[in-house]
């Protein structure tokens, strides 16, 4: 008996066109969910971003540039750059060293080490500042010795650099560890076999392989280093023109009701955030390309 294809019995979908696949949602669901998602993001992400620039330009471009060019604002920019220029390279060296020993060798206590490296992410920014006050502050462990030798760490630039280094500690390491673990060590073994020494192997083989991951970590690390507020606030002492980073300067201006000034400096930080997002997307794209190739 021939198999009868019950074509007449199958109900044709009311909508013309290609029937939905099992993994597709009906059009009204797609529209609804996309609308909810974009509405939520617009409300919570885009609106605050627009508000920063809107408030900064409220009194016009003249007031904006006067606020940005103010001597205390420029001193804050300079200190922010100094803090980032010290803490980011320090964490890069650490991140590479940590990823090298974790990815290239097996030893006991490795997973504990990885957990400890992530620890600063679990610590509240305020506590990140507090612990340095407990070590270097006037009443801290090293306080009497530091006072005796006239070394200022807390309420001075070194404290700001230390607190910034702490909060940005894991960024580079946590990008590089999984990347280098996934890449394995065959290429390094080949280089060593062919007579390269350790440094040559690192500079010529390992570094080119991890450069996008490294750059990604540096971008995230730098954004956090320049934007950190809570930890730096505890150790800074808030001395205008001396120990104020940009985020702290924003707070001071805001609390003095100088809203245009506060939002003008804030807009510079918001620009930095946007540049960070663009660079991050470019690196992700290049990284995906390198993987596809």
């Amino acid at each position, binding site marked *: 008996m021939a198999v009868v294809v019950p074509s007449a019995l199958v109900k044709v979908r009311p909508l013309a066109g290609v029937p939905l*696949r*099992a993994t597709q*949602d009906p059009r009204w669901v797609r529209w609804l969910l*996309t609308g*909810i*998602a*974009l509405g*939520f*993001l617009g409300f919570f*992400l885009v*609106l*605050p*971003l627009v*508000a*920063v620039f*809107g408030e900064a330009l409220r009194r016009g471009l003249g007031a904006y540039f006067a606020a940005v060019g103010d001597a205390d604002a420029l001193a804050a920019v300079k200190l922010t750059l100094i803090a980032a220029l010290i803490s980011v390279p320090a964490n890069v060296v*650490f991140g590479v*060293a940590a990823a*090298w*020993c974790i990815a*290239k*060798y097996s*030893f*006991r206590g490795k997973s504990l080490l990885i957990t*400890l*490296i992530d*620890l600063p992410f*679990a610590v*509240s920014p*305020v*506590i990140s500042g*507090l*612990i340095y*006050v*407990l*070590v270097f502050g006037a*009443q*801290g462990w090293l306080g009497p010795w530091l006072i005796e030798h006239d070394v200022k760490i807390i309420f001075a630039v070194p404290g700001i650099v*230390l607190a910034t*280094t*702490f909060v940005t*500690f894991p960024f580079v390491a946590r990008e590089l560890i999984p990347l280098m673990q996934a890449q394995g*060590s065959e290429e*390094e*073994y080949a280089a*060593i076999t062919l007579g390269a*020494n*350790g440094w040559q192997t690192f500079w010529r083989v390992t570094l080119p392989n991890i450069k996008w991951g490294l750059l990604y970590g540096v971008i995230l690390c730098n954004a*956090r280093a320049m934007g950190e507020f*809570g930890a730096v*606030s505890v150790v800074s002492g808030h001395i205008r023109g001396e120990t104020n980073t*940009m*985020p*702290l300067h*924003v707070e001071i201006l805001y609390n003095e009701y100088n*809203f245009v000034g506060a*939002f003008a400096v*804030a807009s510079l930080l918001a620009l930095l*955030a946007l540049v960070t997002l663009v660079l991050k*997307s470019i690196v992700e794209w290049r990284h995906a390309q390198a993987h596809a190739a």
Partner: protein
Amino acid sequence: MSVLRKEHSVLPGFGLSLGFTLAYLGLIVLVPLSAAFLKTAGMSWAEFVAAVASPRVMAAYRLSFFASLAAASVNAFFGLIVAWVLVRYAFPGKRIVDALVDLPFALPTAVAGIALTAIYAKNGWLGQWLEPHGVKIAFTELGVFVALTFIGLPFVVRTLQPVLEELQPELEEAAASLGANRWQTITRVLLPELFPALLTGFALSFARALGEYGSVVFISGNMPLRTEIVPLLIITKLEQYDYRGATAIAVVMLTASFGLLLLINLIQKWSRRHHRV
């Protein structure tokens, strides 16, 4: 080197890289952190309890806990929808939207704080429309919740996205061919599969919210017993030179965060096992 014994490897640099890693980790992270615990160990039990359980501190715990819980829940719900839309649907500007999700990671918290205040204050962008209807957000508990929602937003989206991308279409096709409708497929097949990642994102968002300071202090108004969060209380105690009181509260918070970190690690371990089966 007796504990950290390595297997033999021809690659040089083990001693140098591990030595530097441990020294740097110790100096920057472990020694300063231990200072907090040692400082508290010097307090008597009665002193410690008085510092960490006074009515003002208890009110701050309650606010921090419930506002973080509410913010993480809202982020779990909307984060699931955002991740789903970003992975499954196509729409113009999708790459920009995808990049923008990370804004709370990139935008300094103080900037977020004053921006949210400018929006929700009495004469602010949205505040001027909301306050006449009796909805006060800035300088209330709701303001704390809004700020914590902002800073926790990327966690759920970013933990769910890779899991959603790796889901096999066969899973949904099998469910559909066995007679499940779309809703049943989503609630009985997809959601259980996504649950570990959703829980991880929720916990990360919650943990971040508990410790958050910068974005909250501007919008919360900082009224003792009402809108004072735990990190602010630590700062207040420090400004009064009450280092012991500040450190005692910090130790309670650190213990809570490390507990959460452990929990998150366990969830991830469990979900990996769950996935392999």
